[in-house]
């Protein structure tokens, strides 16, 4: 077995744990924090709640919300300028993947200078980042757990993957109560995102016993809790979804992902589609593509999804994929690429861009751009 490594941030989990945000920030030396968030959270009232917590603890803050979904490189530099100009110290990010990735990008520039595209790839960050404290609000991206940071390079129209242990925040505070204000669409897209993380990292070449266990737990929790969470916003179900997202994050941060995410990144770079909406379309064909080399693992997933059966692994794996397709269709989300893309002429470009993504590397079955194109065509 290959030597593996498992790294995660300090995780504070539980209902109401949001109140520890300020004390955690103070522990890592905060006096004046850069508070990164987005407008959706401000609407839901969480930004005010957090500013209240900061104020009560005597912390100053600079609010930065010039981030939309799929953060752009120029937004990162803007944020880094504000950080330096306002003499901020600790970075607090509250929100989904976008504000958290933006915070990671800002921290990278603040600590290392240069331009954010200089750090694309793995382990290119050579200097420490400011302390970071994340509070995820979507239970999907798991950017608060992972060493990944995805930033859109506007000029090249690609989503850059920046991978470094330094991008793991110091503290991740996960408060399931924050999920109560989520919309149905957001619950689905985050859960599917976490699900895709779990499946791809479970199949990954770098998966280890420590990550596999987390991945399978995430798959089980999401499959069993997404319905109750949607139907009556059951707090237990939402809590289980955020546990699942955290587990999936631990798994993919250390094991990496696969071609599903490579394609999702190149699609997002070109068309700015919501990351969570790509996976219901791509995940079944990607799993089928990997069936040749990962049949046993896919069978394990099938066992979780369809219940234990007395049949071959091959059949179980196929059954699991079929279950997933039904499941996604029931969620009334787009399940075909043609639903979200204007025409199929761009598929080749997307496939060629995805080959270079770091996620392609850990895919269990080696993939050329032609095979990626095949996956896309199957999903069209």
């Amino acid at each position, binding site marked *: 077995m*290959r*030597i*593996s*490594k498992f*790294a995660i941030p300090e995780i504070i989990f539980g209902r109401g744990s949001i109140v520890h945000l300020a004390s955690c920030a103070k522990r890592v030396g905060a006096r004046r924090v850069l508070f990164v968030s987005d407008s959706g959270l401000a609407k839901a009232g969480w930004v005010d709640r957090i500013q209240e917590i900061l104020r009560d603890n005597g912390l100053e803050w600079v609010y930065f919300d010039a981030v939309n979904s799929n953060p752009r490189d120029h937004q990162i530099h803007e944020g880094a300028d504000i950080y330096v100009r306002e003499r901020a110290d600790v970075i607090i990010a509250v929100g989904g993947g976008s504000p958290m990735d933006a915070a990671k990008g800002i921290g990278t520039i603040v600590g290392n200078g240069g331009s954010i*595209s200089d750090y*694309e*790839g*793995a*382990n*290119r*960050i*050579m*200097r*420490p*980042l400011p302390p970071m404290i994340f509070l995820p609000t979507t239970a999907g991206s798991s950017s608060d757990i992972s*060493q990944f940071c995805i930033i859109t390079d506007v000029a*090249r129209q690609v989503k850059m993957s920046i*991978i*470094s*242990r*330094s991008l*793991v925040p110091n503290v991740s505070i996960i408060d399931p109560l924050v999920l109560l204000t989520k919309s149905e669409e957001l619950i689905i897209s985050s859960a599917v995102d976490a699900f895709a993380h779990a499946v791809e990292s479970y199949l990954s*070449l*770098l998966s280890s016993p420590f990550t596999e266990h987390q991945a399978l737990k995430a798959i089980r929790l999401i499959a069993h809790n997404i319905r109750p969470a949607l139907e009556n916003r059951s707090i237990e179900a939402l809590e289980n979804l955020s546990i699942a997202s955290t587990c999936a994050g631990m798994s993919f941060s250390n094991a*990496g992902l696969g071609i599903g995410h490579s394609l999702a990144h190149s699609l997002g770079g070109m068309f700015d589609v919501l990351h969570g909406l790509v996976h219901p379309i791509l995940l079944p064909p990607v799993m089928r593509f990997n069936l040749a080399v990962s049949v046993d693992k896919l069978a394990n997933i099938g066992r979780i999804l369809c219940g234990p059966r007395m049949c071959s692994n091959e059949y179980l794996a196929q059954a699991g994929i079929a279950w997933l397709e039904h499941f996604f269709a029931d969620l009334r989300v787009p399940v075909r690429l043609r639903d979200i893309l204007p025409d199929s002429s761009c598929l080749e470009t997307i496939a060629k861009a995805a080959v*270079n993504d*770091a996620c392609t*590397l*850990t895919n269990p079955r080696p993939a050329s751009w032609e095979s990626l194109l095949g996956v896309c065509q199957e999903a069209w």
Partner: protein
Amino acid sequence: MPGKGPSLEDLIGIEHSKLGFFQELRQTIEALKDANTQSAQRRREIAAILDGITDIMMVLTSDLRILSVNHVFRQTFPDVPRPEGMFCHQIFRGEDVPCPGCPASASFAAGDICRETAIFKIGGKNVQFEMVASPINRPDAPDRHILVFKRDVSREKEYQAKFYQAEKMATIGMLATGVAHEVNNPLTAIFGFAEGLRRRLPALKEKVDPRVMEDVEDYVATILRECRRCQDIVTTLLTFSRQKTVSFSAVSLNAVVNDTLKLLRSHLKQRNQAKITVRVDLSENLPMVHGDEHQIKQVMLNLLVNAMDAITGPGRIIITTYQSSKGAVCLSVEDSGCGVPPENVDKLFEPFFTTKRSGKGIGIGLSTCMSIVKKHQGDITLKSTPGQGATFTVSLPVNPEKTT
């Protein structure tokens, strides 16, 4: 854009951890330690340089509070253990308001270097300080500080005064000797011929009208008398100006008074202001003192000139010689002039201290007097009420102790 994509090993990243600031902190601490050692070294060097400066140094705030002082200051004021925070004028003058003509204030106002000389009483002794105040410009600080150096120049001033006096006396001496010789020749001729006339008078007696003869005799006697007086004045001048080494002998103070008055008589008459009456009250059987007549005359002359200068308008000067109860021989000069304000009383004898307007004096007279009298183991004292005149009293011992 990276040159080559990451490998699986890169993704595992065994050798990569979340970077903390520890390394940087350690480097910073090292750098700070180095910087600290260097600045300590530099501090020691600067301290050594500062310790080599023998002037009093102070750094003052704009309101003249002391911020820091050097070791000379502490030696000078051993009984002020914590000068920091006190006002400069508190320590140097015991006053609650800044001294007039303060160079620090002037320097602060002008933003430039200011020099000033002033006399301070320190430890019961008058010390003259030459002060240099210069603003310390600190571009990053809103309030400016002033650096003040105070150098003790008492001894230089004393020597300078002696030098001036000696030069003055030498010049007067040269002039007086010249004048005396020039006047002496015609005077000798006049005296000789007048004497000749006086010898021929009996021969003329029979041939001239007795009344005319009486007049002639009177005229000749007057000429001779006035000639003698001229010779006296010339001799006195010569004794004043004689360039000679100090020689102590028996001196009569009464004679000194009379000689000096002879010299000043015309000066007294010439005063275009109202008249000054001079009363002389000399003790009959005054013992002789052991001293240098020429120098004691200088003292007398100085005191008299000062007394005359102090009087504006009509006034009087009383010159008295007497023997004090302690046996010392005293000479006092009392005037009805403007008197001496109490704050100046103990600065009066300092070289270059003067209240006369510029051009009238440079302030070395009384300091010269004092040094002469001290050489005679005597003393000069002063009693004065401002506005009602002053009395300077020179007391000289009759039997001075033999000094080696």
